[in-house]
């Protein structure tokens, strides 16, 4: 199919260059799994093309009614997951502080005892028969999301002799372009495990680490029911389209 591009065609804007100082390097020796999985060559850098400026979209209609309620989405009828009841909520913004509406947010976590429902997981803390440990939602028109869950427990992992992960929830976020695709982890305010975790410390910038720590939000805590944690996330910003490169014929 040939596409005719008239002058002043609407453009798909590019993203701000990724600031790698905000992210972990590929090779971070404190986290041993990176030894054989980190590329050693330089990345190929170029201004994102349409291939990276576009990305998939997911409608609100794909969601089941309980998809953002981990307390009950795997529970037997009438039962609930065991653990400290919390709601996690916040906005997805871009680097221009604009809300990112209608994008898919997925999350997964261990149960209150630090046990994941995964066949390769052998930690002795028991599974909770009423807890699956995952959910999803789509941000609203204001880029806002929320889900209900139980606070996950810390768990040991085979890295150093005595390494334990802080309590955390994994997040997967889509933006409007594939170049915004992001996976990260949310930690909890005041957790003394955060500062000593080799995975947290793959990030060199303390201020960047701090932005992965959800704040206890007493204002949105529901009395006699559940506590709220506030966690806002930021995706890459998009440039203003002043002038794109001239196309042939312009």
């Amino acid at each position, binding site marked *: 199919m040939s596409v005719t591009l008239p002058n002043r065609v609407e453009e798909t804007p590019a993203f701000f260059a990724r600031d790698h100082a905000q992210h*972990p390097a590929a090779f971070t020796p404190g986290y041993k799994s*990176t030894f054989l999985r980190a590329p050693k060559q330089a990345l190929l850098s170029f201004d994102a093309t349409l291939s990276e400026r576009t990305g998939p979209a997911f409608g609100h209609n794909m969601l089941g009614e309980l998809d953002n309620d981990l307390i009950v989405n795997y529970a037997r009828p009438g039962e609930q997951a065991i653990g400290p009841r919390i709601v996690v909520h916040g906005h997805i913004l871009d680097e221009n502080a604009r809300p990112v509406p209608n994008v898919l947010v*997925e999350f997964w976590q261990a149960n209150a005892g630090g046990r994941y429902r995964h066949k390769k997981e052998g930690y002795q803390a028991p599974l909770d028969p009423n807890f699956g440990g995952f959910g999803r939602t789509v941000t609203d028109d204001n880029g806002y999301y929320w889900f209900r869950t139980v606070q996950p427990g810390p768990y040991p992992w085979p890295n150093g002799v005595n390494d334990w992960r802080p309590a955390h929830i994994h997040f997967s976020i889509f933006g409007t372009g594939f170049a915004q695709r*992001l996976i990260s982890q949310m930690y909890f305010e005041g957790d003394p495990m955060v500062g000593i975790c080799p995975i947290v410390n793959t990030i060199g910038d303390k201020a960047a680490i701090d932005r992965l720590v959800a704040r206890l939000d007493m204002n949105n805590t529901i009395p006699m029911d559940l506590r709220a944690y506030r966690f806002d996330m930021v995706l890459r910003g998009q440039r203003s389209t002043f002038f794109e490169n001239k196309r042939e014929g312009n």
Partner: protein
Amino acid sequence: MRTLPTYLTELKETPSQTAGPYVHIGMTPNWSGITGVYPEDLGLEVIKDGVKGDRITVNLRIIDGGANPVTDCVVEIWQADAGGIYNSPAEHRGPADPNFVGWGRFPADEDGRLSFETVKPGAVPGPSGTMMAPHITLWIVARGINIGLMTRMYFSDEEAANARDGVLAKARMIGRDKTMIGRREGDTVTFDIYLQGENETAFLDV
């Protein structure tokens, strides 16, 4: 129209963290045996019945720096339809084939292999009126990968277009262009991704 102070309008991207070894719980729960929550895993189908174009099966293999298969990774793919149009709200050139999804998500098996059915993408405009050679964008996450690795798979049966492609030209300058070309034989394309080492795949910062 900036009326807010910059500290409110200039934020920093949320830092990446590894997807970890249990990424399947959240991204492919049915595949990992946790059924009954989602009707099916997302991203199983890149195309639907009736899609237009040249149908292919892509077979990928992911290998680490010790020549071990990466058995716990998840790969997402993103590509244009056979006419070179993306099925995305951010696509301004017109609608894609209605039977084309364009995005897929696949967990590796115990040999570090995964495969998917799709159509060969059409060429997509690059910078300054150039055309990029047909390619599929791949994004790999796993334990030990701190930030998702992005690369492209080009096609061995597109020699002329590949020779003109700007991204492959960048890869050629550092001797890595061949690491981005999938080998087409009949309706099958085979592509091995090496995270590290002698055959290391060229990864992108875009």
